[in-house]
């Protein structure tokens, strides 16, 4: 059971469909501070590095307010990406879970249990539902395509008819009144002229040109949208294909998973209840969730040179060890750019020189090319953003270092959502060395990925399930 292809699927999905999602009540003012776009991606990414996770712990790890996280998770539950489980538990129950976590993920130390022991609380857990995600994403893409295609082929449109004599217009709903007993055509109620279907040439000429133009423009737009969708969702669709014949990772229900995980943990590690904090700081090799983060990433954001190098090598190693080729590339890319803060100009030249080939024909089916252009663009965008934002960021960094708890809020508070910013924010997660995986995000945004358009479709789809009418829209 390989999780990695599915994790990549989740990551691509997150960036394609949930990059722009905000999860907040409508009553809240839409100030820059409460703008939490991008959180969805961060949360999904974090979940790919975990199995079942207690939501409080996740919130702590991501330095998010638990309410905010819960809102996001509830949204994903509705989107059928995440399964959740809630249960009342005592400290003992929490311990079972913690032990299970320690056994499977060797995650951040759970030494703090002492604090959470006393009360009987309802705890919520969440976990990605990979099998369902696969279906949901396929269904979503299918609906998007179908909707566009149907409209393009005017499949579900009501045919209009026009009388060439008097210009009166009818549509198919009038058909019953228009049939004639003498011949096989429709006849005008007014002058008994033979009606022509509106798409026919004559009708097109007689009918107002403006209307026709509007229709043509609409068609162009649809075609364009369909094409863009093909291109931009290509990585996602290829990943879907890759995953097609693999069996999805199945963690089972929370209870089953716990039982399984702690049993396995005991077998491997001896007594799993001895939560040795040192365990969590060693490498992740051989654990099912290899990317479970190292908290060191925070420092990359702080901009302290020495530490940065440290992180860099860490991520490099980690990705070289376990990542598929496409990820290694991105990892290296980022390493390069982190290293190159001083001499970024030359770096930039180098990458942009390489760019055109992958760039001009990014429609090539070759994923590598795609990736490459994404990366190149990311690098460029990154530097641009970096130059622009460096001052601000450093200031923000200082502030954040002093008050480390409010990190994510502070960042999202900054109104401008530059690429650089975003990567910073993700670094912020703290426990995740996610640098390598930011390339796709940045690529998307800088390439003016049409997420907006897609989201329009996307927003419609949940309702669609209840509403028969939707596809005629």
């Amino acid at each position: 059971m390989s999780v990695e292809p599915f994790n990549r699927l989740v990551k691509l999905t997150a960036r394609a469909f949930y990059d722009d999602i905000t999860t907040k009540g409508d009553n809240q003012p839409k100030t820059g501070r409460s703008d939490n776009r991008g959180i969805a991606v961060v949360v999904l990414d974090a979940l790919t590095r975990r199995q079942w996770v207690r939501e409080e712990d996740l919130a702590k790890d991501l330095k998010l307010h638990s309410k905010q996280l819960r809102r996001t998770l509830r949204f994903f539950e509705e989107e059928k990406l995440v399964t959740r489980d809630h249960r009342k538990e005592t400290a003992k129950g929490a311990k079972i879970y913690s032990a299970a976590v320690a056994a499977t993920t060797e995650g951040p130390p759970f030494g703090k249990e002492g604090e959470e022991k006393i009360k009987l609380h309802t705890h919520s857990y969440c976990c990605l539902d990979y099998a369902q995600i696969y279906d949901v994403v396929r269904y979503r893409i299918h609906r998007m395509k179908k909707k566009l295609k149907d409209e393009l082929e005017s499949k579900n449109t009501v045919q209009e008819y026009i009388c060439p004599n008097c210009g009166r217009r009818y549509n198919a709903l009038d058909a019953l009144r228009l049939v004639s007993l003498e011949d096989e055509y429709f006849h005008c109620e007014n002058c008994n002229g033979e009606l022509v279907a509106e798409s026919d040439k004559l009708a097109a000429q007689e009918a107002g040109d403006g209307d026709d133009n509007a229709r043509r423009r609409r068609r162009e737009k649809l075609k364009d949208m369909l094409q863009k969708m093909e291109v931009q969702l290509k990585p996602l669709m290829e990943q879907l294909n890759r995953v097609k014949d693999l069996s999805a990772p199945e963690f089972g229900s929370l209870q089953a998973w716990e039982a399984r995980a702690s049993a396995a943990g005991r077998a491997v590690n001896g007594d799993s209840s001895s939560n040795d904090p040192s365990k969590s700081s060693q490498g992740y090799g051989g654990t099912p969730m290899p990317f479970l983060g190292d908290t060191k990433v925070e420092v990359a954001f702080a901009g302290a040179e020495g530490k940065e190098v440290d992180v860099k090598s860490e991520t490099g190693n980690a990705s070289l060890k376990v990542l598929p080729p496409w990820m290694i590339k991105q990892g290296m890319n980022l390493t390069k750019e982190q290293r190159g803060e001083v001499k970024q100009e030359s770096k930039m030249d180098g990458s942009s020189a390489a760019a055109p080939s992958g760039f001009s024909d990014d429609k090539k089916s070759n994923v590598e090319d795609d990736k490459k252009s994404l990366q190149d663009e990311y690098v460029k965008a990154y530097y641009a953003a970096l130059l622009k934002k460096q001052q601000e960021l450093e200031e923000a960094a200082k502030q954040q270092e002093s008050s480390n708890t409010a990190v994510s809020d502070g960042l999202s508070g900054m109104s401008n959502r530059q690429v650089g910013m975003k990567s910073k924010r993700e670094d912020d997660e703290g426990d995740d060395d996610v640098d390598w995986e930011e390339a796709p995000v940045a690529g998307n945004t800088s390439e003016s990925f049409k997420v907006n358009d897609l989201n329009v479709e996307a927003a419609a789809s949940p309702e669609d399930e209840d509403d028969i009418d939707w596809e005629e829209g």
Partner: protein
Amino acid sequence: MFFHIVLERNMQLHPRHFGRNLREHLISKLMKDVEGTCSGRHGFVVAITGVESIGKGLIRDGTGFVTFPVKYQCVVFRPFKGEILEAVVTMVNKMGFFAEAGPVQIFVSNHLIPDDMEFQSGDMPNYTTSDGSVKIQKDSEVRLKIIGTRVDATEIFCIGTIKDDFLGVINDPTTI
């Protein structure tokens, strides 16, 4: 789609029916009046399945007729956009074809008939594929999808498509 619902109606009854069989008269009149009618709101009333209650009658001034408020259960048929129906073709012409699904009339215009089907005029006008394997003519049974409805107070008319997966002829009258 079919629904089983409760409707209410004020029934006027001629005084000559007042007697032992008043109730029976009332119900048979109700059936005669209501079954087969169409209201834009509820659709076609297919059948009355029961009478819930008959209220107090009110004598109308001048005529002697009495009005009873009657609550009755009935099955109604209401077509919806997006619904898949099976229908019998009633007429084929150059503009498309008409079909009936029970009381509902549906028109399928020629641009919503698959492109590989061509209109053939003659005694028995029809739409046929180039290899002749599929033919739509009068009395053919087709499965179609409703893409538009016109709902008037007393009439429902639909337009449909057979240009989609799993739609089209489901039996050919010439092969029976």
